[in-house]
């Protein structure tokens, strides 16, 4: 085990997977010479050469689109989209092509594509660098959506993603790149998709969340423990596939639920969690599920963003509401 922050864990994993399998190719804007604008791909060019680590032209659609062809050629493409907001430029290739390639060819082609992209706010980036778009992708069948919340998971889930023969959108919390740190196993480490992680145990309320909001929720749980409220925190890790069993089990155990997301409220993935609870655990609910979300506004500029993104206070307040309402 070594102490790493999240971006180090990602870099370390890319090195391991490129060393392990020479079909793995990393490409995107500024990933080679510069090692990525956040250094996630640092050193790959030197270690694996300009054939496998490629600075592409500034064009997201063809970054995603060539991944389709590379996959068909037997490669394992790991393209980077520099910020998730610019995956919009590639939406027709990701949603319309990558997600459907296996289906439309009835399995002729495997699609072992892992699209890595940082996302989420809180670090004063320019416009369209901070958007949380996971819900817009979650309605697109054929993609897997993976969002690590710890350094060890960044390694374990990224390893699984690269080895998975299906397309994975691997979303890295920008705010967590350096802030999230932890022990990371040095050797082989995989984390299966579709298995949520219980971050802290608790019995009164469960907070269900993912990505950077796991850290905020953990802090909220610590604070609430002081008030005598026992909060379980569940990190979903992957939205597709979704660990419905873990959700149901937690709802049954706690009866009261808070869902936290940074995306705008309307039709964020929190809605799907609530709908899933409605479908599978309705009778265990002792109170309506509380949603903590960004607002239904465009992601705002620097001076406003701390007001937009959920913080510990909002999560604490939601938990209190969940506990207070009558059964």
């Amino acid at each position, binding site marked *: 085990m070594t102490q790493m922050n999240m971006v180090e864990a990602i870099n370390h994993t890319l090195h391991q997977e490129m060393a392990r399998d020479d079909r793995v190719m990393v490409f995107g804007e500024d990933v080679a010479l510069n090692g990525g604008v956040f250094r996630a791909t640092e050193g790959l060019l030197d270690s694996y050469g300009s054939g496998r680590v490629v600075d592409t032209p500034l064009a997201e659609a063809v970054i995603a689109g*060539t991944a389709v062809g590379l996959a068909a050629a037997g490669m394992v493409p790991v393209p980077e989209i520099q910020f998730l907001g610019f995956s919009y430029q590639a939406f027709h*290739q990701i949603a*319309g092509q990558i997600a459907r390639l296996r*289906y439309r*060819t009835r399995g002729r082609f495997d699609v072992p594509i892992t699209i890595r992209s940082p996302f989420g706010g809180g670090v004063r980036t320019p416009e369209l660098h901070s958007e949380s778009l996971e819900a817009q992708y979650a309605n697109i069948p054929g993609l897997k959506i993976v969002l690590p919340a710890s350094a060890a998971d960044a390694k374990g889930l990224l390893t699984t993603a690269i080895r998975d023969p299906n397309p994975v959108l691997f979303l890295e919390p920008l705010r967590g790149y350096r802030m999230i740190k932890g022990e990371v196993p040095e050797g082989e480490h995989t984390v299966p998709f579709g298995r949520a992680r219980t971050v802290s145990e608790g019995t009164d309320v469960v907070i269900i969340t993912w990505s950077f909001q796991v850290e905020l929720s953990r802090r909220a749980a610590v604070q609430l423990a002081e008030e005598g409220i026992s909060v379980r925190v569940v990190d979903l890790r992957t939205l597709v596939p979704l660990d*419905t069993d873990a959700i149901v089990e937690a709802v049954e155990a706690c009866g009261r639920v808070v869902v936290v997301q940074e995306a705008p409220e309307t039709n964020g993935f929190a809605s799907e969690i609530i709908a899933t609870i409605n479908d599978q655990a309705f009778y265990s609910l002792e109170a309506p599920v509380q949603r903590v979300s960004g607002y239904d506004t465009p992601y705002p500029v620097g001076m406003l963003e701390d007001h937009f993104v959920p913080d510990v206070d909002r999560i604490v307040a939601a938990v209190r509401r969940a506990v207070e309402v009558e059964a």
Partner: protein
Amino acid sequence: MTDELVTSMFVDMLGARLYSQRVFNLQRQGRAGTNAPIDGSEALVVGAAFALNPTLDWILPQYRELVGLERFGSDVLDRYVLYCIGHPDGGHIPAPTRVWPPQISLATQVPHAVGLAWGMKQAGEEGCTLVFLGDGSTSEGDFYEACNFAGVLDAPVIVVVVNNGWAISTPTTSQTRAKNFAEKSHAFGFPGVTVDGTDAIAVYEAVADARSRAVAGAGPTLIEAVTYRLGPHTTADDPTRYVPPDELNAAKDPIEVMRSEMQRRGLWRQEWEDDIVSQADARMEKAVVAAEATPLEPSEMFNHVYDQPTPRLVRQRSEFEAKS
């Protein structure tokens, strides 16, 4: 160009037209979905296919070309018929046939072709990719982004712009002010040529040149193949609303062009052609019968979303099966 080659190409062109007409008629009979006839593009499709090596090279079609790719394997047509009747297996052209299924989302196949060419080069494989797209499709960002990247990569890819004068009802004059489509290659820094797309031999030669360049590591080529769409855009279209009859009447028919060439070479007899056509007809009849007899479980719908279904898909499938 040997007589044998000319004859083989003509045979496939005759087949292409016939297969296309048969699929068109199936739609009229309610036995197939919307489809786009090849009429006018036979020479350029067949000419291109013959200039490639089916065991080394890949073809990524738009949607009109599959009836003309017999040279790449008979399953191309068989699967295309399945595709047109709306059977999911129509999308699966089995290995080792190096042809992709039709692409409906226009120009998205160009990045795929570039990526595949890039991957082949990276893997040290001989061979190249050839991608077809229409004049209208060249207006999509994907075309430019892909060609530009192909240039940077020196990728072994041949981009064939099928300029048939129309994108549904939109004439090329509303599509671009570029002098011609070959000129667009200036934006990418690799050669562009315009050829007569009604002349299979001319197309063959242009593609053969481009292929030599590609496999020699000299990078991509853009080939504009000029022809005219001789029929409606698709089974859903009424071209009399917008195609000027004079223009249509003046258009060359690639089948006639090739028939003249056959005659010039003393290779043609009516009975021979009749025979070829009836063979093609029988071959198509078999394909249609086979396609229509291909079984289909409704729950096939749930297969191939992922290599293994997610728990949610398993649940949905069992709900679906319980209901039916």
